[in-house]
């Protein structure tokens, strides 16, 4: 029997079991097992050729193979980490959850037949007492945990394992913070949200609520909302992708640029009376004094009394739009402050506006900051199916199209008028944009045309951001689902030696999948 040089301990275990001696062959990066007669012949050869030190080392190594050495190795437990395909891990978690056992217990059940089969092949060469001990080791490892999980007695890390395996049903997760994401992804996500914001910056008549230049500058200053998290839950078979934080907090400090004041005005007006659909924010001054100035400016002209059904026959009516005098007063106040703390949330959806102007709850199956898919395994080759789209090289464009469809559906509920989404189809927007661009040079009512050009550019940017983001998310999904996961388990050291011998000639995924197929 031969072993790779890195598997000296495995070689030692087999040698101890079979009464052989491990001899290193450094020129071949191998360790081979030889019997005592062959060992003595080698020692003799080495001594004969003057290599007495090597001969001595061989003898010392042979002498160390005692019963005590075996006992020490026998009682050791080892940790083994292997990379398996994500689809195999998904399969494991699903089966474990279905059988109401932990993943560790399932892994033991799947590996044991292979280990036992291997041991039976070599058993004839193993001393009786040692074979008996190996059988005990196998039976002990096979046996499920005696007694139920008693939560009150579990240590913290076992509690985490319990929670992950039984309460959550086991999930496969990948999480990346904004600073871990590629710039392209961060830009694309911000571009998508910015496009939605710009779409919602148009009122019912198609006019800008706030200056598009100021909106643009605000988004340039806002911190990156992008994150990336994939969570695949094998039971019940779903996958979700979170790709942005809709709530961010940041500080805006005026730099002397006149546009800074315009941004502060936009935020103050929105705080006072939000007009951008699905946008919520709170602002405060950078210190107590400035906060007082801000509060006073925001509280002016907020409401007035009219005849109604309230106390003394009066009703409070909210002022939708700040009169020009109030707006001037607001600008004066803002020019006296150095900046703002901003807590903003976009998009945030709790209700959806209906065509008749009423509001109703957003559909429960639409989550505004995530994309959701069904996830399953094809029966013939255990490859992933995401909403029935196979995850393989030849279906990459189908995957991107699926993500695009999801992004569009999400956008519908983030748009100010979901029943009227999309406001315009891409091709129509492009045709109109090109036609209007050609008109500008001929001086045809150029101011209105310029506004319309900008509006159509916003539509085109929206579609471009969807295309770009769907490709990036599609690529990440593909990488995750066609990639690998690390499986770590604890196993008696002796059994690990057997397992590593088996997996030197067989893929680890195949060992597990064979076991799963036999069990199903």
């Amino acid at each position, binding site marked *: 029997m031969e072993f790779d040089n890195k598997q000296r301990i495995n070689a030692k275990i087999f040698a101890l079991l079979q009464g052989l001696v491990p001899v290193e062959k450094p020129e071949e990066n191998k360790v081979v097992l030889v019997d005592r007669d062959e060992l003595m012949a080698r020692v003799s050869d080495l001594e004969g050729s003057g290599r007495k030190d090597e001969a001595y080392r061989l003898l010392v190594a042979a002498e160390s193979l005692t019963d*005590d050495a*075996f*006992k*020490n190795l*026998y*009682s*050791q*437990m*080892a*940790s083994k*980490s292997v990379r398996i395909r994500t689809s195999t891990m998904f399969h494991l978690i699903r089966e474990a959850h279905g059988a109401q056992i932990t993943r*560790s217990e399932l892994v033991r059940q799947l590996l044991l037949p292979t280990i036992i089969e291997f041991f039976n092949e070599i058993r004839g060469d193993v001393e009786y007492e040692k074979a008996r*001990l190996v059988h*005990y*080791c196998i039976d*002990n*490892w096979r046996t499920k*945990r*005696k*007694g139920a999980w*008693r939560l009150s*007695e579990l*240590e*913290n*890390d*076992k509690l985490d*394992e319990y929670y992950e395996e039984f309460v959550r049903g086991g999930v496969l997760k990948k999480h990346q913070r904004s600073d871990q994401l590629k710039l392209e992804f961060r830009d694309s996500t911000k571009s998508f949200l910015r496009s939605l914001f710009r779409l919602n910056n148009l009122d019912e008549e198609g006019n800008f609520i706030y200056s598009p230049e100021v909106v643009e500058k605000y988004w340039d200053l806002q911190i990156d909302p992008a994150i990336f998290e994939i969570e695949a839950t094998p039971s019940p078979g779903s996958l979700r992708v979170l790709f942005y934080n809709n709530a961010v907090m940041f500080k805006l400090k005026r730099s002397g640029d006149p546009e800074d004041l315009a941004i502060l005005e936009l935020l103050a007006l929105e705080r006072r009376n939000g007009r951008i659909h699905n946008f919520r924010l709170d602002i405060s001054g950078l210190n107590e004094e400035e906060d007082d100035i801000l509060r006073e400016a925001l509280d002016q002209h907020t409401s007035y009394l009219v005849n109604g059904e309230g106390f003394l026959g009066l009703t409070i009516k909210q002022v939708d739009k700040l009169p020009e005098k109030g707006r001037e007063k607001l600008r004066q106040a803002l020019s006296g402050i150095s900046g703002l703390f901003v807590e903003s949330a976009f998009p945030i959806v709790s209700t959806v506006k209906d065509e008749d102007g009423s509001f109703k709850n957003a559909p429960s199956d639409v989550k505004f900051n995530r994309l959701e898919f069904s996830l399953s395994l094809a029966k013939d080759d255990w490859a992933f199916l995401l909403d029935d789209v196979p995850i393989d090289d030849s279906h990459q464009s189908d995957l991107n199209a699926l993500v695009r469809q999801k992004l569009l559906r999400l956008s519908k509920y983030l748009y100010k008028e979901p029943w009227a989404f999309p406001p315009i189809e891409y091709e129509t927007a492009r045709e109109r944009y090109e036609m209007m661009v050609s008109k500008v040079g001929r001086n045809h009512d150029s101011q209105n045309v310029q506004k319309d050009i900008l509006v159509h550019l916003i539509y085109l940017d929206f579609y471009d951001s969807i295309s770009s983001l769907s490709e990036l998310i599609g690529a990440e999904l593909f990488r995750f689902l066609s990639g690998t996961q690390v499986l*770590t*388990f*604890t196993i*008696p050291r002796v059994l690990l030696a057997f397992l590593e011998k088996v997996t030197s000639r067989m893929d680890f995924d195949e060992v597990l999948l064979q076991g799963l197929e036999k069990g199903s």
Partner: protein
Amino acid sequence: MTTVGVYVDGPNVDRTLHGAGEYDILVRVGSLLVEFAEEYGELTEKIVFMDHDNKWKLRDTRDDLEANGFTFDLAPRIYGKSLTDPMMHCHVVDRLHDDNCPSILVMATSDGDVTIPLEYVSNHSRTSVVVGEQNSLSRLLTRKCTELGFECHSFQLLAKAR
């Protein structure tokens, strides 16, 4: 001569072996640990860390530990919280700075929290050997032992082989 210290997380060993139904091991855990640790060298220290109000699941466990020369370090409870673990970990880390610190520190526990003192042991160029109840040994703990090159043993297999 290699010196060896044995440090036992009393509540953990008691609870895990009893929970696993390994009563025959539990009643002679002291003897087993001494026999095992002596294979590595001269035993210079044997301590059981336990709660001051600890009630052993089996009376014989304590008797066996006492008979094998273990001393008992009692940890207080503060607002119902046992301080056995931090007491044991602090003792081990403290010993690492002593001239007569054992070369090998045998830790009888299955608790993953002990991975922190194991890092200290490694950084102080000492060796640790962990012994725990087979099914309670945390994945984190066995992985850490593998990373640091420390042995990790199962009580059940230890008892079977000796």
